[in-house]
């Protein structure tokens, strides 16, 4: 099993945290993982792109050339993601901010209004967790309780009050993708909350 993921968004949309939590959770799940963040010029508002590879085998190149999954949070990233596509790629778009300019017919696309959902929950920064909830429901890459454990350990002290909204965001992402794309075929039980 190998899953190559590209995470792209504005700096500040939480893709770094998303990737780091996913990497940590898969590591604790006993898998090999490499997480390569972009760095330096990627300040808030700049474009940030992250390469995450999870595998049961040794990972050679940490650079994703063709992605199994692309999670794109905004318009500029949507325009750039074509570099990484292959016919079997899954595409997760934050439809709140991405206006699709052309149809990518062959690509399975999940459109999640992550920013709107996070706003409804009262904190726009949780849009990354909405995407995570949606993504993991489809791909089932990590056991959700393990991910929540990692989330909890990264939101400690001053940040502890953010745990609730992030957990809710995860569940709302899961709910949305089930309602919209799975039509109740598969309902995963979550031990969270």
């Amino acid at each position: 099993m190998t899953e190559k993921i590209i995470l792209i968004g504005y700096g500040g949309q939480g893709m770094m945290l998303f990737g780091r939590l996913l990497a940590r959770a898969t590591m604790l799940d006993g898998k090999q993982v490499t997480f390569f963040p972009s760095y330096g010029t990627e300040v808030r508002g700049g474009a940030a792109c992250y390469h995450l590879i999870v595998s049961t085998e040794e990972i050679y190149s940490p650079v994703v050339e063709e992605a199994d999954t692309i999670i794109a949070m905004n318009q500029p990233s949507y325009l750039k993601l074509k570099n990484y596509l292959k016919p079997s790629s899954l595409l997760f778009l934050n439809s709140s901010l991405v206006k699709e300019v052309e149809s990518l017919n062959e690509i399975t696309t999940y459109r999640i209004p992550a920013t709107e959902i996070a706003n409804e929950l009262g904190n726009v920064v949780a849009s990354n967790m909405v995407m995570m909830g949606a993504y993991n429901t489809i791909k089932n890459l990590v056991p959700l309780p393990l991910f929540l454990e990692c989330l909890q350990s990264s939101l400690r002290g001053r940040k502890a009050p953010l745990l609730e909204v992030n957990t809710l965001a995860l569940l709302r992402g899961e709910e949305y993708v089930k309602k919209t794309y799975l039509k109740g075929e598969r309902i995963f039980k979550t031990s969270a909350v």
Partner: protein
Amino acid sequence: MKSSNNKKHLLTGNEAAAEAAILAGCRHYYGYPITPQNELINHMSIRMPQVGGTFLQAESEIAAIYMAYGGAAAGARVMTSSSGPGISLMQEGISYLAGSELPCVIVNVQRGGPGLGDISPSQADYFQAVKGGGHGDYHNIVLAPASAQEIADLVYDAFDLADRYRNPVMILGDAQLGQMMEPVEFRKTPRTHQTVKRWALTGAEGRARNIVKSFYPVKGELETFNIRLQRKYRAVEQEEVRYEEVNTQGAEIILVAYGTCARICKEAIRRASGTGLQIGLLRPITLWPFPKEPLRRLAKKARAFCVVEMSAGQMVEDVRLAVLDRCPVHFYGRMGGGVPSSREILKKVLNILAPEGTLELEIPEIPTELGKGLYFSTIP
């Protein structure tokens, strides 16, 4: 399985280097910030006070390397780190360390050059690291890790090698290795042969004074010293060569690459499996001493070598020197932050194997997509 996973940490290569140094007994770190090695200095600034060590952010890289010189002369395990421009500033000090036979571990997280360049991965400091860099006849021992785990393991070894040979050891990484996060497990018992350093400047009470210097003004003394240094280097060449071979048995083409490029070469080999292409890889782990003998051995059987680097072609010269004209040596490189893709490498291999063989494309076309934050978009 679970219990062993608990010991794993998800760390950047930079953090792995810093933590391993502390575990290897390093208690003195001097440095100056520069991307892409800032996680290293940051980690040191947090951890050194916790373990009772010294962390000092110097006023410049020149100051940092001479602080390291001072610490080393006093017998301590010392480390400094930087990237291209900062390492260039340190060259004088590194020559002094070699000339005074002082152990010191220096980490270079390479970025694109020349000049201020950029902050993306590069391997263009190879000549500087391997061929001396500073003035005079000297060598650094140069180690080239290819993962966060190997960075940790080689940092332990770097301190041992530095002490054993009383010589600067350079860990030659790159921005990608420094920035990338991977699971790291630290060795429980690092081979810390912290020998008593009888030569160190520890106060001469009750013994004859020690002198640490690289200055030999009396005629003939310096040549005698140089002969001794060269004997030491020959011993290092005899004892310390390290490399990894992948798939070389029966391979038609042998790729030669280190660090990040070696991992992408492995990906290319995996990609080619099942196509009938017989591709192998020799990955030098020590860049100096260079694995000449294994290359000569492989040159007897392989049809050609292809060296892959993130440079205009530096290590390729050492490969050519090793195999001379026993076997053709081709080169594929990307520069200025460009990272080769496994597809590009395979394309090059096919080019070499094609009967025309004349389609020698030594420097790739300028990539069309080098957008901000997308340094790694592939060339179709």
